[in-house]
């Protein structure tokens, strides 16, 4: 590495070339005061507090944050004139800052306050009247107080550079300058809250976190977010664990670099929803009544033992929101104590992409790329869903990647927040990502006159090659919903890539087989000669926090711990949907449902209702009283992830610690403790402590080497949707994507009402106008939704804004893997 020699306060030091003075000095342990600097952002030079004096023949004060460190520079960071300049600068900042430190909620946690204590500036205030500007309380979640704003513009720059939204700007100049939205309207943004985290003063605050408790009496616990699978590190400040008084992330947090989304920042009010359970419930005389833990656990143990002794099937449906440890204990309990192979993580698209997708094609149910790879990738192909709605951190990483010059290729039907930054956006028909990849593969293989060495070494490559034929772009483009030329351009981009990361978004309702998409993505890398190349790979974005972790824990009927094959001779158990079908047919003696609400949150077509009715004994374990819980025989309340110690494995395969950041109500236990207790009552001891940790660590170890490529012949192409119907895209919303957000008033307040977005051409054809109530019907079911006309929706497609639960358009889904064609008409 090139270095340069500079002199700092009389001491010669060698620093890496290409840094700013501020970066160079901080690496030497020399701290400088800053208000506008943020290492994640382009240097701004706004606050002038980092000024240092040059002593190398170019006299004067320079801002260290925006001055490059050059060879021979001599710098004095603590000279009297430097301190005087900082004091003067603070004096100027305080001119137009409403000073109310004694009652300010940031007191004790304010950068400006700290610096004025250190340098002064408040002792001789200049004669000047504060520019009066009212507080803006038009947004329910973020309050802006322009009289406290010191115009460091960190909020504006983060919103633009890190988030790619730029909902706010610095408007006006000089004394007129202020941070505001366009035309001073209410905030219309993604509500990630980065602006609030970055604000050094109290100009931006979150009223729901307001508290009289001073900063120095708050507790802070750093844990891992439990909403999606990005694995963001977050810090929860609270009054000793009772109520969150702040949720933030530090700029050096991994993998999120200080970024969070609306869910991770604001969704925690769900924990105190009235549905939250504090005591076990047992069905007595047809009604669920509160019971002691001892009574409830005795009923559960007796129920399981009875089913086992009668030789009836026992099945457990867990969730991808269990900790890795709890998932591991659950599958051991079911397989060993209950001697049943029927254990799964529910109907979970992320698990399918990992187990049936990556596991089938590469032998290990894991992603082969990480979120960090996005930062260096030359080309990124984004499949199935807009990460701006499903995986907000990934979206911000893609914004950063595109701004540094990475080529972004989007292939999903919904209008995308990333479209303006993309090299190409293929607005494919819903559920046609696999067909698009097969079409691209056909084009690549045909252009190159063969599939390439990697694929030719794999078994079954001839059948695979033949199966591609019907996907020739000229023939299959109509099915995919784009032109053959667009597929050609996609292949041009792909062939030019020297590194390629493919993201496969999963989320309840995103149509199409996610496993097929994951497999074809791997095949595409193989055909391009990029398979196994560092920096290239497939990143499966699981829907929930611990998708990868529960798979590695063995909570899947097809796999054992570590994602390894089942022991020879053992038969795979039932999937969650098969479990429900068997239960509906009266073949299940005991059904144990953890962290899932099949009745309330799963597609109606899966038939949870009859399953729960016809299973002889149903135990539901959940933090909330769900629809399934209301129909169960016993309901066991547990902690949420943020109230729990343990670990989760993010989409990037990294195992991260979670810590109890908030106190559970009524001293509730965690899922694993309940499972362990039931096991003990059945005479079975599950591992604990260091033994358990050793087994989990082994399960989460990265695989050694690869097992080669296993090709699956392409399926016969389906037919494009018949004229008349429209193909529904049903992905999650940014603010509302499932059972937790359903219980967060803060997030539901942001979520769009249940609406169906139509292409202008379709709306005209069907005689539907903006705001009309329309009837959507499919598979014999129908729902009424409000219609919107949106010019970004491709013809023949409709997007239903949906919350990932069993309501609204979700009622139309019968098989989540299939494209959903709905009839749409005006309500008569």
């Amino acid at each position: 590495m090139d270095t340069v020699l500079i002199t700092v306060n009389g001491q010669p030091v060698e620093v890496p070339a290409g840094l700013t003075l501020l970066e160079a000095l901080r690496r030497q342990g020399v701290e400088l005061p800053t208000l506008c600097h943020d290492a994640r952002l382009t240097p701004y030079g706004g606050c002038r507090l980092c000024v240092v004096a040059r002593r190398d023949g170019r006299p004067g004060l320079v801002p260290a944050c925006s001055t490059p460190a050059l060879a021979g520079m001599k710098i004095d960071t603590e000279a009297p004139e430097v301190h005087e300049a900082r004091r003067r600068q603070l004096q100027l900042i305080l001119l137009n800052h409403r000073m109310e430190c004694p009652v300010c909620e940031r007191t004790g946690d304010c950068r400006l306050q700290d610096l004025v204590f250190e340098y002064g500036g408040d002792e001789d205030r200049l004669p000047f009247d504060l520019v009066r500007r009212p507080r803006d309380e038009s947004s329910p979640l973020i309050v802006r107080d322009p009289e406290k704003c010191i115009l460091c513009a960190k909020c504006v720059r983060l919103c633009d550079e890190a988030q790619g939204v730029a909902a706010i700007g610095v408007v006006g100049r000089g004394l007129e300058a202020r941070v505001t939205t366009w035309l001073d309207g209410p905030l219309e943004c993604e509500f990630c809250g980065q602006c609030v985290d970055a604000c050094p003063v109290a100009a931006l605050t979150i009223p729901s976190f307001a508290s009289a408790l001073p900063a120095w009496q708050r507790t802070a616990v750093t844990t891992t977010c439990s909403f999606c699978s990005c694995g963001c590190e977050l810090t929860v400040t609270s009054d000793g664990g009772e109520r969150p008084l702040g949720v933030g992330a530090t700029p050096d947090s991994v993998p999120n670099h200080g970024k969070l989304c609306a869910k991770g920042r604001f969704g925690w009010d769900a924990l105190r929803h009235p549905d939250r359970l504090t005591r076990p419930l047992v069905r007595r005389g047809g009604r669920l009544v509160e019971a002691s833990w001892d009574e409830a656990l005795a009923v559960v143990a007796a129920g399981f033992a009875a089913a086992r002794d009668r030789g009836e099937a026992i099945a457990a449906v867990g969730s991808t929101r269990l900790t890795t440890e709890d998932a591991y204990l659950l599958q051991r309990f079911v397989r060993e104590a209950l001697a049943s192979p029927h254990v799964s993580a529910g109907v979970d698209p992320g698990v399918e992409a990992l187990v049936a997708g990556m596991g089938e094609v590469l032998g290990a149910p894991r992603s082969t790329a990480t979120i960090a790879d996005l930062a260096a990738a030359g080309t990124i192909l984004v499949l199935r869903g807009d990460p701006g709605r499903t995986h907000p951190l990934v979206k911000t990483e893609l914004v950063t990647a595109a701004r540094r010059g990475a080529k972004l290729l989007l292939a999903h039907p919904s209008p995308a927040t990333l479209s303006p930054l993309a090299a190409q956006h293929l607005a494919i028909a819903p559920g046609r990502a696999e067909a698009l990849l097969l079409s691209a593969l056909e084009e690549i293989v045909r252009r190159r006159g063969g599939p390439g060495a990697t694929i030719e070494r794999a078994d079954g490559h001839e059948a695979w090659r033949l199966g591609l034929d019907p996907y020739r772009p000229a023939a299959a483009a109509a099915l995919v919903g784009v032109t053959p030329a667009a597929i050609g351009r996609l292949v041009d981009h792909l062939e030019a890539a020297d590194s390629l990361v493919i993201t496969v978004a999963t989320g309840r309702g995103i149509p199409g087989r996610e496993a097929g998409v994951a497999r074809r993505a791997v095949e595409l890398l193989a055909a391009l000669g990029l398979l196994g190349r560092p920096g290239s790979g497939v990143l499966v974005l699981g829907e929930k926090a611990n998708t990868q972790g529960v798979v590695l824990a063995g909570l899947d009927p097809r796999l054992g711990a570590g994602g390894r094959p089942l022991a020879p001779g053992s038969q795979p158990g039932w999937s969650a949907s098969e479990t429900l079908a068997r239960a509906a047919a009266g073949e299940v003696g005991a059904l144990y449902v953890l962290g899932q609400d099949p009745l309330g949150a799963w597609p109606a077509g899966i038939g949870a209702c009859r399953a729960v009715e016809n299973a002889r004994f149903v135990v539901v374990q959940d933090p909330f009283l769900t629809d399934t819980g209301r129909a169960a025989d016993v309901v066991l309340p547990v902690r949420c992830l943020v109230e729990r110690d343990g670990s989760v494995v993010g989409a990037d395969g990294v195992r991260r610690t979670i810590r109890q950041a908030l106190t559970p109500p009524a001293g509730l236990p965690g899922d694993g403790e309940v499972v362990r207790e039931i096991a003990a009552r059945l005479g079975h001891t599950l591992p604990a402590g260091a033994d358990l940790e050793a087994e989990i660590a082994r399960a989460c170890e990265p695989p050694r080497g690869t097992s080669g490529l296993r090709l699956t012949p392409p399926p016969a192409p389906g037919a494009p949707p018949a004229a008349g119907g429209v193909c529904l895209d049903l992905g999650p919303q940014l603010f509302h994507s499932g059972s937790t957000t359903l219980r967060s008033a803060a997030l539901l307040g942001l979520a769009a009402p249940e609406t169906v977005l139509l292409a202008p051409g379709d709306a005209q054809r069907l005689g539907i106008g903006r705001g009309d109530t329309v009837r959507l019907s499919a598979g014999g079911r129908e729902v009424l939704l409000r219609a919107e006309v949106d010019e970004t929706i491709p013809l023949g497609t409709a997007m239903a804004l949906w919350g990932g639960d069993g309501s609204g358009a979700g009622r139309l889904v019968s098989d989540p893997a299939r494209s959903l064609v709905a009839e749409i008409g005006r309500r008569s």
Partner: protein
Amino acid sequence: MSTRPIVAVPPEALRIVTFDAAMEASIAELLPRYPTRRAAVLPVLWLCQERFGWISPGVVRAVAARLGESPAFVEGVVSFYTMYQTAPPARYVLQVCTTLSCAWCGGRELVAHLKERLGISFGEKTPDGMFQLVGVQCLGACGTAPVVQINDDYYENLDVAKLDAILDELAGRS
């Protein structure tokens, strides 16, 4: 005299702005000269101001959409620079230099005279929409002080009589 009047499109016609083919062609010609679309925000705003006379909120929205930026960002740019008009300007915008050289060479008298003759102060328009008075810092023509910029043209070595003659002619033209 070649100074062309500004023809400002009225606000009600600039609420929702779509660029026509000629405008799109001008923008397409500009873009390759800049490393990023963001770098083209200033010249695209100039094109709009030449075309519409001023930058309405509707123009801000259209420029933002065309360049993949947010309206808040474009508004920040517009509001930083004094030369973008954010309200319909008069037909003739008089930018009078108030800096040292001009002030010494008769600029102060010009300012006093203009304010009296037009009955307006800096930042204001005459009620007939003919003239708008703006006090500006150095226009970079100290050698020919005092100077007044009218729309895109410089009028130099002025005195009260010359300025009156110019204003008479401009006022009489329309």
